[in-house]
């Protein structure tokens, strides 16, 4: 019997901060073992060498913000057997999706002296709006343990086993005192998916929702509770319109606080 062919892994970048793909290099103890288990076929941040596709697993970081990238993502999809998006930019548009609530024409001259040089779309959108995506890994940045779990799952032909509950559950599990109950600190924990390890409340600050909404979050009810804690509509708008502004549930909640 011959050795099993090593699966080919590719990492792609669209509009992003590089943090999610850095999470892969941050697996200091596992990186060399991973590089032995799979062929890292394309990962420009780490290597000059690029092997031709098709790729068994593509990790896609970043959102679609330019006409060129809107084309390029289709090439990536065609070259990939399994496509997994990693991070807030790729799964909900990222912080740069704040442009979706503004007029990009007004923005370009604020940053660039010669706007004609800049080719950009009016919106920042997640990858799934453009091509079929096999799995979305959330977080800004993604958690490296979750990232390893996703890679291992796909390499072994199984579904990733990731918890789907709220940050609140994680706080209880850690034994962290609730910052909203104890300190009246506004916190998005009740509506935010777990994955980070509930770190903000462990540092006595409220969760700011960087892993995005869990399934069926009751954002309106949390909004009312936060109002009791003294948050204004402007505060609530900003709270839901942050790192995960483009995630459906947070977008709707933020819009319900527009100049009420």
């Amino acid at each position, binding site marked *: 019997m011959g050795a099993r062919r090593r699966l080919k892994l590719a990492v792609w970048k669209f509009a992003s*901060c*590089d943090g999610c793909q850095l999470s892969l290099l941050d697996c*200091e103890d596992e990186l060399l073992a991973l590089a032995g288990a799979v062929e890292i076929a394309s*990962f*420009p941040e*780490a290597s*000059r060498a690029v092997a031709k596709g098709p790729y068994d697993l593509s990790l896609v970081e970043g959102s679609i913000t330019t006409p060129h990238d809107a084309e390029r993502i289709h090439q990536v999809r065609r070259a990939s057997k399994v496509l997994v998006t990693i991070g807030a930019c790729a799964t909900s548009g990222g912080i740069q999706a704040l442009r979706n609530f503004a007029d990009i024409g007004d923005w*370009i001259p604020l940053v660039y*002296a010669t706007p004609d040089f800049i080719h950009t779309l009016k919106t920042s959108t997640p990858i799934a709006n453009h091509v079929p995506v096999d799995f979305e890994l959330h977080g800004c940045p993604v958690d490296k343990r979750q990232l390893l779990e996703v890679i291992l799952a796909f390499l072994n032909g199984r579904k990733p086993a990731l918890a789907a509950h709220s940050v609140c559950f994680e706080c209880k599990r850690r034994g962290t005192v609730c910052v909203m109950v104890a300190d009246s600190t506004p916190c998005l924990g009740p509506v935010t998916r777990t994955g980070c390890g509930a770190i903000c409340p462990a540092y006595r600050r409220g969760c700011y929702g960087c892993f995005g909404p869990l399934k069926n979050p009751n954002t309106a009810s949390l909004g009312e509770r936060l109002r009791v804690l003294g948050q204004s509509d402007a505060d609530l708008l900003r709270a839901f319109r942050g790192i995960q502004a483009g995630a459906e549930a947070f977008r709707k909640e933020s819009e319900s606080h527009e100049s009420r």
Partner: protein
Amino acid sequence: MSRGRSRTIKVDVLARVEGEGALTVRLKGDAVVDVQFRIHEPPRFFEALLRGRAFGEAPDITSRICGICPVAYQMTAVHAMEDALGVTVDGPLRALRRLLYCGEWIESHALHVTLLHAPDFLGYESGIAMAKDHPEAVTRGLQLKKAGNELMRLLGGREIHPVNVRVGGFYRVPARRELAAIEERLKRALDEALAVVRWVRDFPFPDFERDYEFVALRHPTEYPILGDRLVSSRGLDIAVRDYDAHFTEEHVERSSALHSVRTGHGAYAVGPLARYSLNFDRLAPVAQQAARDAGLGPVCLNPFRSIVVRAVETVQAVDEALRIIAAYQPPDDDAVPVVPCGGTGCGCSEAPRGILYHRYRLAGDGTILEAKIVPPTSQNQKTIEEDLWRFVEPRVHLGEQELTWQCEQAIRNYDPCISCATHFLKLSLERA
């Protein structure tokens, strides 16, 4: 190479850098006729999207500019806000900020030295490929990187986009015993960092020096990380708040990053070479000795030796972290109180790649009215192009592949962070 023949050397996706860039070098015969270092990272418009946000949100929002140096963004943002709001953060809180920043220097430098830059000198496509022949060096680099990340996780909650930094200080400061837990790990990291200096000092360095104008922060006693005075190797000595009067950003067609120049003087260089050459006297004895043992003088003008300087700075950062931990007495409060008010504030800090400058104008309720952010890589862009003009010409006889690789290496000397600079690379050598 026959005279008059034209060639183009192109690198469409520059590897082992953070973000997307490209390079085109056009040659006519043996003469370089054009060098274009392009940044085609899609613009994300941070300076626009910050308008209307609350002052307190700036550290978390701007950290998303760069996953490699989020602490630099957070620190620069809080300093600019504190300047605008008339708040001074000193004592143990400031020491903790330096400690967190040391973690980022260690992580970022270890990543670049071992995984991104060393493969150029030893002829490997990547750090991972290099690991087959140099397993000890790569493992040591990864362990050093990990120590930096552990420090960031301890103080910041996580290594990428830490959550514990706020205007005025921290959400929660560590107890002494929490810091003591990492002390032994950092003592080992000091040995690892010194071993990295000994490993890189004998790499084959091209004979290449330039008379740069270096720009870096300068502090009365510390090797600069945080500070409020900027100096240059050509006599500039200004307060950070006078930055805008001395530096100009230009928008050029090939780049979604703005090019910075020192007004009336031209290109300048920031980063490890600049910091080291302007602040050798501020290095800790152990770092100075490591530099001397590696054959460095008090000034280093060869950008290829930046890998040695980064290794020396890693020693500095680990040693500094150990000293901060040894002297740490927790402050009474996690943060100093901050009351929103109108005004304009500036902040500057030494990101691993060089000075990062922020300026904000705030409304009376603390809402951000205007933001300006100048990342290190956009300040180095012009210098990188100038390096290539000088570097390529004596080497035009080299074959296409060799020349292309050496050009890439010349760019990686700067550890360019393109995600940051975009408002910032791809390499092509054209022999027209």
